């Protein structure tokens, strides 16, 4: 049988209760038995007197028998009976104490001693054929026996009186003894009942909590706290298992929630992708539309060029031709890769067009390393930078503004640079442009940010854009392009 089981507890508790009640029952039984045995005490002294009387009678009969027939059998009887009488006499009191019954016992003892002396002397005389002697001692013994019986009767009377007195005392307590018996049995029963009640509470307490927790879980309250059961039994094990199950359910629900969140996010992502796809398709559609329109634009511009040349307006024809080529370059997809030479050519046409607009207000210096012309670069990097230099860097410059454009080779890659002699950018502006946020950027800043992103995207992060000061004032933007194989 395993320790700490509910069964063992029930058995132990039941045993305890049974023991309590059994001990009360046993005790009351013992007490009753003791009480009944006590009554024997009442007649103890009277019994002694009765024994004495009987032994005296037997001795007397034995003596008479022997004196009558002088047989050895009757002598044996006499000796046996007189010995028995002497033994009984030894039980009598011999002390001199101021108590009537004790003194009477002492008298009786003396009398019976005297009696036995007479009987012994009578027997001896009989054996010696001394007729006078044995008859005389026999008569004397008869008188002693008579007096002994008188005293025995008187002592018995005293003992009976004592017994009656004792019985009165005994009887007066019997009802109290019975009442206390009833009280102790009742108290033991109630104590056992209380122990049982207490135990049932202790046993069913954890079960009630468990049931309450089960109801709470049934209501969906998975966080209902189940107090830890200290009981090392089936209930404790069940509570622990329930607690564990509750925890598992909690974790499973948390996992489900987490999965749901992921699925939700995935769904949102899918929606977003679908949206982007839709937007892409819209963009493609728009691009197709914009591809349709340039044909018309270029055909028209081509017709204008031919018209200008036919009317000898060569400068107008050159303008339209450069504009048409510039637009053609600009309208191509911006994500394409071109050669640095193409970028330089585009910038040249843009500068030609700007000179028509601004005349000699700005000076453009172009410095190109021919070896750098074959380096690949994302399209439309330099034009926005030149536009920024004119539109922002040299905005307040009425004349003498310089814009330097260079393309050089460096480490197998190319460095494209656009510098202006304008007011330049503050470090805060440079930090904002290089930072992740578009917030607070002016139009030029946004263009510069687009250049930076496109360089990063096209070169896989290996290309970079530096913004700094140009010869003590103005802005210098340098684009470092990696060699082709490194991309």
């Amino acid at each position: 049988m395993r320790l700490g089981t509910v069964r063992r507890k029930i058995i132990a508790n039941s045993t305890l209760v049974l023991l309590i009640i059994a001990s009360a029952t046993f005790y009351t039984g013992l007490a009753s038995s003791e009480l009944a045995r006590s009554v024997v005490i009442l007649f103890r002294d009277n019994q002694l007197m009765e024994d004495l009387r009987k032994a005296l009678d037997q001795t007397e009969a034995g003596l008479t028998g022997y004196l009558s027939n002088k047989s050895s059998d009757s002598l044996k009887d006499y000796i046996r009976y007189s010995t028995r009488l002497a033994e009984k006499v030894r039980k009598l009191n011999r002390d001199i104490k101021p108590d009537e019954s004790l003194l009477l016992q002492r008298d009786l003892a003396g009398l019976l001693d005297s009696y036995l002396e007479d009987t012994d002397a009578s027997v001896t005389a009989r054996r010696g054929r001394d007729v006078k002697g044995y008859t005389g001692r026999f008569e004397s013994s008869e008188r002693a026996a008579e007096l002994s019986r008188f005293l025995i009767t008187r002592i018995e009377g005293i003992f009976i009186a004592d017994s009656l007195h004792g019985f009165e005392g005994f009887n007066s307590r019997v009802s109290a003894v019975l009442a206390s018996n009833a009280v102790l049995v009742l108290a033991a029963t109630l104590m056992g009942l209380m122990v049982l009640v207490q135990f049932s509470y202790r046993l069913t307490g954890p079960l009630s909590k468990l049931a309450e927790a089960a109801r709470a879980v049934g209501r969906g309250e998975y966080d209902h706290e189940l107090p830890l059961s200290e009981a090392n039994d089936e209930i404790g094990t069940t509570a622990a298992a329930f607690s564990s199950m509750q925890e598992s359910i909690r974790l499973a629900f948390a996992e489900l929630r987490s999965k749901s969140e992921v699925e939700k996010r995935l769904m949102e992502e899918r929606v977003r992708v679908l949206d982007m796809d839709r937007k892409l398709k819209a963009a493609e559609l728009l691009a197709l539309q914009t591809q349709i329109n340039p044909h018309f634009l270029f055909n028209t511009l081509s017709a204008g060029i031919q018209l200008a040349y036919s009317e000898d307006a060569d400068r107008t024809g050159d303008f339209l031709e450069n504009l048409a080529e510039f637009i053609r370059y600009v309208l191509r997809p911006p994500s394409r890769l071109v050669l640095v030479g193409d970028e330089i050519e585009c910038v040249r046409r843009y500068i030609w067009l700007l000179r028509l607009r601004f005349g000699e207000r700005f000076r453009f210096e172009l410095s190109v390393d021919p070896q750098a012309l074959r380096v690949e670069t994302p399209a439309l990097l330099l034009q926005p930078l030149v536009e920024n230099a004119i539109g922002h860097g040299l905005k307040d410059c009425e004349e003498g503004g310089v814009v330097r454009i260079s393309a050089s080779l460096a480490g197998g890659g190319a460095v494209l640079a656009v510098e202006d002699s304008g007011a330049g950018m503050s470090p805060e502006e440079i930090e904002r442009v290089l930072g992740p946020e578009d917030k607070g950027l002016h139009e030029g800043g946004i263009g510069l940010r687009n250049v930076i992103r496109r360089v990063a995207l096209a070169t896989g992060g290996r290309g970079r854009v530096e913004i700094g000061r140009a010869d003590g004032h103005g802005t210098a933007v340098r684009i470092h392009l990696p060699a082709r194989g490194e991309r």
Partner: protein
Amino acid sequence: MKTLAWFLAVVFGLAFLGATLMNADLIGRSRRALAGGPRTYGSEARYQIVVLLPDASDSFFQGLLDGISESAPRADAVVQVFRYPSAFPDQAEQYYDIALRARVDGLIMFTPRDDRTVERAEKARHAGVVFIPVGTDPPAGNPPSFIGTGQLRQGLEGGRRICGRLGAAARIGVILPATGAGDLTDEPLYKGVAAAIKVFPGAAILAAARADPGVLSGVETASAMLRAHPGINALFCSSSQDTIGAAQVVVDLNRVGRVAIIGSDETPEIRRYLDKGVVTASIVRNSKWIGEEAVRAFYRIKEGHPALQPREADFAISLPEGGAR
């Protein structure tokens, strides 16, 4: 509820324990009660003295017993009293025999004047028992160690008291003790009264009677005497019981003042009659002294001293004024 159950379990447990202890105590007490209780005996003594007296309620015997009982501890003795009915003196023989055969240490026995006291003393000596006879008058043979009251002197004093009051006109009725025997005129008490009135010629004893044993003997005897002899103007009583009986008769017959009563001994009732003038005087025998001397005589003999000669106790006179002379 759980806490209450614990609390009640403890309460009932205590009640159970208390009831068990009480029950055990009650059973113990019951057993002791059955066994006669925790009897307390006095300490063991060296000697056992048997006192053998008639079962009379007379104050003489009570005084005698008081004297013996009070003196016994001084002799390192315990007293065992055997009383026999005055009407059955044979029972005295039985107790006497028991005392001798049981070989008690001492026997103080009331012996009437006609008792075979000398023979008894001899038998006791033979049995190794110290025998001290006590009584009123010395029995025949004048046994040693006897201690009595001297009824002759008591009679003389009574006669003198009567004649001192009535002179030659005294007509006396004498009530003799129930313990006596034989011819009334041989009683020392009677002789004492008779001797006392001789000096008053004309004074006479009109009647004499022995009281019967029993509490009403004084009443019966006095009543019969006064009815038979209306000329009696004085009663002489030899015991307290007879004195009280005679006083009641005189009161009942409305003869207070006309019949003088000379009583014996003093009890609260006699004292009351004295104070009311019903009883003229009472001759108080010092029976307590007799008891004390009896124990002292026993102890002397036990200590190896020879027995003393017979002795008589003194007496006092109790008068209405309350004084004793």
